[in-house]
């Protein structure tokens, strides 16, 4: 794995506005946040050789600096059972107009995270206070209801816990509607690795204009950053 600081430097040298998904996840992994096991393939033909080491079901995502919203472009497939399905899915993707005409760096093949509650963990840079870390419940909770909590970095373990308690949908984490409670400790750990002392935002906050881990899927066993996007500061 590349040194974490090099990921940002490389993206800058390549004049990219953001880290690609693989680099973003490597950055997170460098700070101890769990990300899915993955490999990158260049074309459909490479699938068979590459997928053997991964445990299905698998997710496939196109990697392109030209495509901001992978799902909208038809660049995401999930629940693929093995190499043959991955190979076919890559061929299908290559025919999508939005992908056919884009610069494609490759395809990310990932193990899928166990089902759980979807959270969003983010970071922004405030001109007066510096890096802020954010947590919210995923999907409609963040987008429509704005159910999020912010703190100024660095946060303490107590701050991280209070952020979760502050969410209106906090009951979902405790196992509402007959579900098992998810690991609160795992979420707190991710918040500390992103926004705590010596965490990602305290270390690289000057270089990162916006961080968005969406979703962070949390089950009773732990939390996995399933998608991550880091917009670089100008």
């Amino acid at each position: 794995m590349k040194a974490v600081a090099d990921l940002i430097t490389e993206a800058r040298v390549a004049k990219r506005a953001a880290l690609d998904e693989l680099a973003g996840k490597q950055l997170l992994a460098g700070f101890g946040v769990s990300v899915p096991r993955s490999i990158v393939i260049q074309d459909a033909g490479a699938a068979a050789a590459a997928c053997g080491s991964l445990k299905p079901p698998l997710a496939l995502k196109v990697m392109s600096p030209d495509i901001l919203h992978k799902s909208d472009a038809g660049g995401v497939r999930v629940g693929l059972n093995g190499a043959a399905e991955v190979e076919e899915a890559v061929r299908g993707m290559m025919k999508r107009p939005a992908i056919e005409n884009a610069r494609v760096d490759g395809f990310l093949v990932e193990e899928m995270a166990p089902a759980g509650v979807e959270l969003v963990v983010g970071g922004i840079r405030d001109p007066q206070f510096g890096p802020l870390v954010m947590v919210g419940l995923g999907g409609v909770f963040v987008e429509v209801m704005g159910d999020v909590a912010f703190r100024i970095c660095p946060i303490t373990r107590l701050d991280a816990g209070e952020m979760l308690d502050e969410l209106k949908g906090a009951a979902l984490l405790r196992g509402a509607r007959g579900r098992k409670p998810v690991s609160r400790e795992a979420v707190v750990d991710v918040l500390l690795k992103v926004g705590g002392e010596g965490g990602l935002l305290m270390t690289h906050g000057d270089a990162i204009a916006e961080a968005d881990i969406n979703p962070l899927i949390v089950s009773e066993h732990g939390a996995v950053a399933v998608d991550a996007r880091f917009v670089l500061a100008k």
Partner: protein
Amino acid sequence: MGDVIERFRPLFEPKTVAVVGASTKGGTLPNVFIRRIREFGFRGAIYPIHPSAESIDGLKAYRSLGETPEPVDYAYIAIAAAQVPPLLTEARGRVRFAQVISSGFGEVDEGRALQDALATAARAGGMRLIGPNCLGIHTPRGHVTFTEIGPEETGPVGIVSQSGGLGTDIIRRGLTRGLMFSGLVTVGNCADIGPNDLLEFYLADPQTRVIGLYIETAADGRRLFEILRAARAAKPVVILKGGRTRQGRAAAVSHTGSLAGDDRAWVALTKQTGCVMTTTLDEFLDALLAFQALAPRPQQPTRRVVLFGNGGGASVLATDQFARLGLDVEPFEKQTVDELTRLKLPPGTSITNPVDAPVGTLQQEDGRVAEKILELIYGSGRPDALVVHLNLSAFVGRTKAEVLDNLVQAALRVQARYPGQAHFVLVLRSDGEPALEERKRAFRARAVALGVPVYDEIANAGAALAALAFHERFVYARS
């Protein structure tokens, strides 16, 4: 921390004051300032600075800040904006603090460059700068004030206000409520000294126990966060933040040239440092009064509140409001109810919590029955806070005048018998009728002298207790 006190001593306890902008004919703001500090007991040297006059208000005048007999601890400057930078440059290192009252600097587009020139001139002149675009400083220990006279004794409340006019309101309305100030500095556009510097002073200042900040912008929010985080809520800090909405931010730009910033960061700041955020001037003053009068009890954060007074509907509304603020007005346990029952209070008296005692009950034994009820509440109910509310209007034409006196005295007597056992708060409700207001003023003065905070409405008391509870919970969770 000791040196921050020393650094600011010439500002809070100046021995020499220069006044720039006073006229030989009198009537200007600087003339008024000279009169005010004399009335406030300032006994040091006052040096009017004037280009030609021999004397002003009976004081010998000098040509420049660099020509006074003694160096100047504090200079009060209110002249046309463009004239200020050359004036400061001429100080030649002989001025410690200069407060520039004049406006026409960074709060208007055409004044931005002039504000930079002002800051440069202050550095060249070797002084620290307060303002521009502010009103002055109120420092009882230094006998200097920009307002009409207030009590000369130094209190526990230290204030920084980015607005001058609001600073005046804070002093005048605060004094009416019984607030006592350790200092109040209006900082305006903050070309040099800002809220962070004065916050550090107040945190270190042994006279200051409570700090209030009216802020529109934190030019260095990171430093504000770090100062407050390091302080670990050792002294309660109450913030009144201007510019929390899109429209308010636009207003702040034209007021003090402030970029008010992301409100989410301010909310986060309060949660991480235990500062209390308030949204109106009244809430701000009410919270400061609670912190001045009531010692926080972080070992047992305020939660259980007993309401006692006259007014059934008012009690129900107050119970709702307290609940929304996270304060519980829960019914008493059986033993307390039994003990209250044995008092055989007249029908119409509600002896659970809230305790609603109509005038007919309260006038028994000329008002002394309240003492028995309060004794029981303290001894048996054991609340974290006790709010006694009296609707003065309801007594008019129904009882002898001394009934109200007796009630207020009874309440004050009982709370003195249980020191530190529960936060005790008095609410005196009135309808604005002049004679009633006059009695209320007298009651308030008596209560405040005994360290009991008095509020106009139960809702104000609720918000102030919630502020206290927020501080207590923060300290409790982090100790």
